[in-house]
């Protein structure tokens, strides 16, 4: 069920295998109600998320992108999310410079046991994207 009935937007989520994907799973198993706009892509670690994944998604059709990994100090690979934090923060600050609303991109930390938190994150982020509406960065232009 989407937030605005009948009109789903496209949100891409990059979730680390060890924590956030587990958290999403917990939320599912517990039957927490969540909006359905999010398409999840499982990655080994938030450190695997190249900021350019986010850019590519936003440029080619996504209305919002969510990245979620283990809490700092809890990364399965020890340091992955520490690197991710720097890269993703850099991206968040770059986006508005090229005219993309940084609110369309969110990164956060959700552990495998935090089903409820996951539900909250997805609901809030989806709401935010619906408030912002669809993104039309894409413009075909032959030159």
């Amino acid at each position, binding site marked *: 069920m989407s937030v605005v009935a009948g009109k789903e937007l496209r949100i891409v989520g990059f979730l680390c295998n060890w924590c956030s994907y587990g958290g999403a799973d917990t939320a599912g198993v517990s039957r927490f109600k969540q909006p359905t706009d999010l398409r999840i892509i499982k990655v080994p670690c938030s450190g695997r998320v190249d900021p350019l994944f986010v850019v590519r998604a936003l440029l080619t059709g996504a209305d919002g992108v969510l990245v979620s990994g283990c809490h*700092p100090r809890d990364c399965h690979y020890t340091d992955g999310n520490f690197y991710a934090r720097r890269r993703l923060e850099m991206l968040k600050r770059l986006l508005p410079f090229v*005219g993309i609303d940084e609110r369309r991109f969110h990164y956060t930390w959700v552990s495998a046991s935090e089903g409820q938190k996951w539900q909250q994150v997805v609901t809030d982020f989806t709401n935010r994207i619906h408030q912002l509406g669809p993104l039309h960065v894409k413009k075909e232009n032959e030159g």
Partner: protein
Amino acid sequence: MSTEKVKEAIAKILPDVETVICYQQGFDGLHTTPLFIKIPEEINGLIWNPLCVQNLTSYLPSIKKKVGIVVKGCDSRTIVQYLQEGLIDREKIVIIGVPCTGVVSVKKVLREIGHQPVAGVAFDDNGNIVVKTSKGDRTLAIADVCPDKCATCQYPTPIVYDYLAGDPIKSDKPKESVHEDIRQFDEKTLEEKKAYWEKELEKCIRCYACRNACPMCICQDSCIAETREPHWISQKLSLTEKFMFHMIHAVHLAGRCVECGECERVCPMDIPVAKLKKKINTEMKELFNYEPGVDPDGKPPMYTFNVDEVKIKEHKL
């Protein structure tokens, strides 16, 4: 005159190195082009003046033999950055540093003279460039036609060198001025910024001159803009694909761009692509108090982390 001092220094180091990279006159009065000196007789071909703009250090990582190189203050930042990233062997490079009072942007001169063909160029003692065209001589203050980087230059004297051709110069430009243009641009609305980049990037022909001239684009032949698997960029000529390429260049330069301005200087379509990287630098300064290419022992901020990041706050939804 620095020219004589540069020549002297080259003569001194030439026996120890395979080649010395410096400048010679190019195809017209306004353009210089690299000169690779191997034998003493070739030293006479060298020129040194404010048209020596190109950042020659980009040749260094691909040269395996011992080389000498002539650098301005800003060029030396590339060497520092290479050292931070372990891309060159300091032992194999002999650096002739030249304290610099600013160079000339050929694009700005051409704009001033209405893109007239240039018959000759001279420099006077008052910091002017005199450009001869069929419509007469034009005298321009170098400070008015310098690349943007010179207007706020903090490092006119090279940061690393083995020989210094001339007396060190201290910058008289305020530190805050460096990122002022970025802060101003950022004040525009999202729509304005989007429209600005769409208009600029639409001109891009994806010739990749900006990438290939960039000293810090070290992937070169393995750039992800050209890989098929994964296929980051399509062969279509849409604005999206052009945009994507520039985001690749910018993101891969995060915390590494030494602000030499080569990408912008070489763009045949005059696209201000250095701005994107400079924006990230502004943020790197703010977040990690990091400035690329100034401390040989520094570490690029994306290559490291702090368990507790002082300046990164969790984002609320």
